[in-house]
């Protein structure tokens, strides 16, 4: 069974035909070629496949694509404007908050959502919010520092 859905993907309106049992992860990766969306656990634990659905971080491995119909979807490909990186991405580079970077897109998107909700999070709040994003390389202390830096930078006008 297939179904047609309309989504706003990284700022662009897209009409896509999907299998009714396809996950959003499959549609974004295999259908749309957005390879920053990555599977690790397949059961919504690790956060590697995180995308923003109407601004909310969601494990795309668990969301059936038809349920995303009418939603605004952001992947990390839609975060930077041209060559200009998002302040969270810049902070990740300045703090070198990654090693293999497989988890980085999901981590960055969760951080973007956190900072939209809480512009001034404490380290404990950051850790709590990002607890659903795993980094097996263990870059966690650097990620906490990067998100704090990004929060400061966004409060100062995203400079």
């Amino acid at each position, binding site marked *: 069974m297939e179904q047609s859905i309309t989504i706003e993907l990284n700022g662009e309106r897209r009409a896509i035909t999907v299998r009714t049992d396809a996950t959003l992860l499959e549609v974004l990766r*295999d259908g749309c070629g957005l390879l920053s969306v990555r599977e690790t656990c397949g059961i919504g634990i690790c956060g590697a496949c995180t995308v923003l659905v109407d601004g909310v971080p969601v494990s795309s491995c668990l969301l059936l694509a038809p349920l995303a119909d009418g939603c605004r979807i952001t992947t*990390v490909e839609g975060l930077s404007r041209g060559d200009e990186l998002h302040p969270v991405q810049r902070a990740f580079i300045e703090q070198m908050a990654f090693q293999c970077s*497989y988890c980085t897109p999901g981590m960055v998107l969760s951080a973007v959502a956190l900072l939209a909700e809480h512009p001034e999070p404490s380290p404990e709040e950051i850790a709590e919010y990002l607890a659903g*994003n795993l980094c097996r390389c263990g870059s966690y202390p650097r990620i906490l520092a990067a998100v704090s830096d990004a929060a400061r930078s966004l409060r100062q006008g995203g400079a």
Partner: protein
Amino acid sequence: MSVGQAVPMIDAVERVTGRIRFSQDASLPGMLHAAAMRSVVPHGRIVRIDTAAALEVPGVVAVVTGEDLRRLPGLRPVYGPQIEDQPVIALDRVRYVGDIVALVAAETPRAAQEAAALVAVEYEELPAVFDPLEALEPGAPLLHELEPERPHEGTALYFGIRPQFGTNCCNLFRMRRGDVARGFAEADLVLEETFRTPAIQHVAMEPHAALALWEDGRLTVWSGTQTPFNTRQILAGIFGLPVEHVRVIVPPMGGSYGCKVFPRVEPQAALLAYLTGRPVKLVLRRDEEFVTLTRHATVVTIRLGLTRDGRITAKEVRAYWNTGAYADCGPDVARKGGFGIVGPYRIPHVAVDSRCVYTNLPPAGAFRGYAVTQAAWASESMMDIAADALGLDPLEFRLRNLLRDSETFATGETLHDVHFAECLERAAAAIGWEGPPRRELGDGRVRAKGLAVVMKGMTTPSRSEAKVGIDRSGRVTVYSSTVELGQGARTVLAQLAAEALGVPYQEVRVVDPDTARTPFDNRTTSSRSTYMMGNAVRQAALALRERLLRIAAERLEVEPADLELADGNVRVAGAPASALGFGVLVEVSGQEELVELGESRNQGGLDPDTGQGIASSHWHQGAGAVEVEVDTRTGKVTILHAHASVYAGKVINRHTAELQNLGNIVFGVGSALFEELVYDQGQPVNPNLSDYLVPSFLDLPERMTHDLLERPGAEVHGLGETALPVIPAAVGNAVARAIGARVTELPLTPERVLRAIRARGGERG
């Protein structure tokens, strides 16, 4: 220059924008997707396989079984890096839950998975064995019929191994130094204890992935592997090809930690591509990752002879490494663990018997720390037990026995550039060791501190080659077969080439490893790359620098000594107007690209029957110290502060060096407190990230600190693993001090800690 500085990775922008492409992202037109049907029994004879239903799934192109494999002429159906014991597909027998019984190639991943699930297999179950000690008992089911003519010479074997024919022991490594009987006779006190560690899994976030393509009888494989040259050789062996007809290209990996050392999915993808005539990609599901490779579960018994004044007179070790159904590199793990268990101490009399043992469990192989985590768990726990028995402070006891510069290790090799004591003292100081050893908070919570110190070898002997080139655009390129798995290899090699050639490191291109294009390297393992490959790159870049100077000297009619390199130019020192761009010099030479080769080798090796020789051309040295809080009502352990002090010698990139230490501490926390693969009669109980926990943000120690010890003029020491093995051992020692009882088995779960507390209560009561 960037060397020694904290500079970002050269591919940092690709990484934060998600544009970096891993091996699972590789694709080719007309590509098929593969899936595997795996055994559901731990040991059995395959009676019948029915593939009819699988073949009817729309989109399925091929379903292949061991029977098909056997019928293929010229194909060698088994492989393995040290013993050729693993079939590409089970031939007539399955040896663990997860053994591949059939492979499917289909137009879509879904069709492949659906078809694989429809392969019907009938088994005649055979008796199975899961415990390494039971597996060595007479009459235990035998996993393999090892014969004296095996292992085959000419495979990837690089050291002597000693399979015990007619048993499940696929390697017995022995170390003999002095006379342990005499050492125990000289002791005032002899202690003995047995320690255990469970199987755990690497959980690289990117699964194993390989894409195989056949063209005109030649095989190309894109694969996330730490071992491109071993993989090439093994694939050539399977398909009966000269190695030059196999090409292995390695994109960056989304983590590995040892799980991508030696072939795992490449033979299967290559077989399906061979049979279908189309490119085939195989990417494992997470549950398959858990049955593809694990860290060796171990049972280690240590007997230690001591004098009253705190000297170690003798150490006797019996170690058992549960390597599962296939040897993989288990024989080498048992060897490295065999000398690793001795520890960095002055011990005149040593006897080690280290056995690698087959059981009906998933294969175990390389894992970050490579045997030293299990070895340190046993030997560093034993050091604290000994200190307690002697009434000595654990730091003081270690300092009395630690090897110092120019002393001899149990292998007979003399050690230089030795910093064990310094690492340990710094780690102890970092957590305030001098304070009270144990503090009760009054509500059932107790705080205590623990220490551990380790030595870890680097693959010896080994060889790394590198090329550095400059083209007519003046661009510097590093050709190296060191793989990028998140450690920042591309960046560090670019920095080293850049330094020699006086260009910004960001402008250096580092090509992906490609056995057809990048020169030979042993493999990206054992924390060897920054040192071994780094030296090869540096030498190549320095040779290139000399060549540029010679060309410029001729052109400018001056002596090379009068010239200097700056900003991609060669010029007469102090005369910027004379500058000739690198690209111009390449044009002058008449070449498209000027390329120079560098090489780095280390020498040594151990006698497999005595463990005497050179185990490692230099040693990775580190210490850990932790403070824990144990809630004695629940058994829960909280790590308040974890510190690692690691000897770096010389740091090339401060960012990536620090990230190795931090990452190792985090890895060690998982291993210490909760990571454990559970099997029930060989059935994996927790092969998913819901039931198998890895550390998250919420599991970090409240404080994490570390040191990188550097010395002017020192050589680079690898950092990829050293800080990991110290953590579980230090946590175990801290918990033992806190509760006054020893937990001898990892991980330190609340249940185990509580049981130890209650057992102690029983003793006292």
